[in-house]
């Protein structure tokens, strides 16, 4: 297939990528700044081509439970929302994790707390990586920094979700969702046949054939011993994910004396800040976590032996900075610079923050 | 004239002694045992065997699916 470059919003890229990666169903509820995902799907009408089901639910709660139901029957299903809506989804996310179901959740973050603002924010980092719902669970969290990554991460997130039988989340923000950029959409991949699903997901509730026991999708286990074993199995899985699936990008890091750590749209601005800083003679580098969980703890710990100080740049009051500090473990100072309320920093502002806080 | 004759088998260990079968029986066949099962419940028994017409009312109302019903014609 010839490479076709298109210009579109990040939210639109999510929708097109979902259709192309063989997604079976999307269930969502409109909320700014991510409504274009559902709008695009409804305009494209993929049920007429790939057979993908698209449904506007009555609420985010309902949407995530549609995802839970569909995932339980082995289907490749997803939802998307923005911060307040993702809060509503946390019940379902916890159930997905507890029943070990693969699914994709997209959060195009806006500012909070509460109804907050429709402007971009990265204040759902804690909610995403520390477990927004109840219980000991983890979400595989991917943070795209471009429209291209919005498109690419849909397929990747599904692959990881099915590999580990665990929900995955794309944690974007209003900037990435709304901005238009060139993008090469992934090649079309057909939806799996029922036979392929039963082979890949022998655990799925698809209707019980004569030769097997009933498949029961549940997170309920009242026997303490069995429940502890379930949790230990989850923890072993999370450990395997932490060992195998850490993804990050290093930009201008080889000779860096100071290191920025930033994800998503903030990393884009930090990249420019590094260029400006270097023009001024400050050897500034950027480490961009692509997976927020599993977190690039080891990579950051190694930089603690190389750089003088680190600055996390986040559109929040200081959330990822805690994980960076845990990785650095006191070896070098780790500071935070953030803007709240929907204001996005300029590269110059970040360079000034480096000077003021690290030097 | 042919006469209908019925009989039931009660899964005594599964029975919880709710008595709904006793109430449902139109010919007063059933009663509760004096003994208890392993769960500590009195269980349903055929006390008046001859009266059973195999109508299955007992089995139909049994919440625990404890009762199997048989029926035959005697000439």
């Amino acid at each position, binding site marked *: 297939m010839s490479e076709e470059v298109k210009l579109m919003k990040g939210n639109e890229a999510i929708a097109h990528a979902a259709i192309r990666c063989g997604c079976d*169903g999307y*269930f969502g509820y409109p909320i700014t700044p991510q409504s274009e995902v559902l709008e695009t799907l409804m305009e494209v009408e993929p049920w007429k081509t790939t057979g993908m*089901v698209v*449904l506007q*639910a*009555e*609420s985010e709660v*309902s949407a995530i*439970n*549609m*995802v*839970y*139901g*569909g995932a*339980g*029957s082995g*289907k490749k*299903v997803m939802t998307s929302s923005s911060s307040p809506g993702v809060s509503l989804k946390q019940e*379902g996310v916890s*159930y997905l994790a507890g*029943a070990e179901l693969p699914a994709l959740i997209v959060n195009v973050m806006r500012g909070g707390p509460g109804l907050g603002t429709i402007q971009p924010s990265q204040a759902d980092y804690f909610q995403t990586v520390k477990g927004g719902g109840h219980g000991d669970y983890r979400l595989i969290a991917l943070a795209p920094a471009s429209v291209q990554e919005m498109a690419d991460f849909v397929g990747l997130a599904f692959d990881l979700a099915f590999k580990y039988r665990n929900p995955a989340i794309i944690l974007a923000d209003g900037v990435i969702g709304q901005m238009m950029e060139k993008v090469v959409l992934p090649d079309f991949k057909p939806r799996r046949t029922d036979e392929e699903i039963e082979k890949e997901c022998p655990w799925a*509730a*698809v*209707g*019980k054939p*004569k030769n097997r026991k*009933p*498949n*029961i*999708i*549940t*997170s*309920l286990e009242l026997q303490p011993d069995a429940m502890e074993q379930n949790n230990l199995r989850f923890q072993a899985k999370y450990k395997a994910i932490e060992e195998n699936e850490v993804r990050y990008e290093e930009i201008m890091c080889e000779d860096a004396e100071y290191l920025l750590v930033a994800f998503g749209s903030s990393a884009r601005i930090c990249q420019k800040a590094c260029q400006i800083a270097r023009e001024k003679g400050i050897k500034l580098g950027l480490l961009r976590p692509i997976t927020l969980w599993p977190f690039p703890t080891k990579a950051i710990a190694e930089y603690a032996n190389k750089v003088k100080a680190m600055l996390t740049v986040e559109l929040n009051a200081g959330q990822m900075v805690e994980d960076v500090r845990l990785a650095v473990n006191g070896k070098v100072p780790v500071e935070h610079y953030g803007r709240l309320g929907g204001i996005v920093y300029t590269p110059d502002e970040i360079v000034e923050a480096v000077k003021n806080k690290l030097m | 004239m042919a006469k209908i*004759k*019925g*009989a039931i088998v009660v899964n005594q260990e*599964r029975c*919880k002694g*709710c*008595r*709904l079968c006793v109430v*449902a029986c139109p010919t007063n066949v059933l009663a509760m045992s004096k003994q208890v099962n392993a*769960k500590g*419940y009195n269980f349903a028994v055929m006390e008046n*065997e001859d009266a059973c017409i195999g109508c*299955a*009312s007992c*089995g*139909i*109302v*049994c*919440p*625990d*699916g404890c009762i*199997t*019903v*048989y*029926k*035959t014609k*005697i000439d």
Partner: protein
Amino acid sequence: MAIEDIIKPENLVYKKPDIMNDNSMHYCPGCSHGVIHKLIAEVIEEMGLVENAIGITPVGCAVFAYNYIDIDWEEAAHGRAPAMATAIKRLRPNKLVFTYQGDGDLAAIGTAETIHACNRGESIAIIFVNNGIYGMTGGQMAPTTLEGMKTATCPYGRDVKLNGYPLKITNLLKELDGMRYVTRQSVHTAAAVRKTKKAIRKAFENCMDGKGGANIVEVVSTCSSGWKMTPEKSNKWMEENMFPAYPLGDLKDKDANI
């Protein structure tokens, strides 16, 4: 004639359905759930749908229904079963998808999911067990608790000034254009059980004929433990108190213009 001569395979007229397994059910003695489970199992078996049925269990006493009927199941979060059923049926239109829900699950915490799934006319069947009380959590007030009825959270009787009125959710659902079949039944006598079985069969058949439309079978039920009565007395109390508030019969049958 000796009883041994009657108890022969060729004389069998009634037994519990094969897909209802031998696991001892956790329900209290006399609980209506057992009968309703049995009917669902019988209908699935008789329709030849064992390999094509996906059930959704609620949160409430029937949370463990999946332990007793040998089909594939998904266990829902409290009240969310109709949303799950919506997705499963749309993703697997050839399957029988049904939910099994109590009054708290369906008519309190899951009201939105219930109404919207029904309003969309999803080709699903909802088996709604209404016993006017929360059984599993120990007998608290349900949306369907009768006026004056005592529960753990309305110990002096339901006061409508404090708690509002018993919610006749099935009557509300009847009004939705997406609803194809709405019926209210009970399982307190053999005759009532037979009627309820017919209703469940009709609901399941509607799910499978491709014509669409949502189906609900409300089963007005007892909760001996919650009501603090014997099963026998519970049935009597239900007839005298529940049936006037929740009268039995078909509320809507689009196919029969009812």
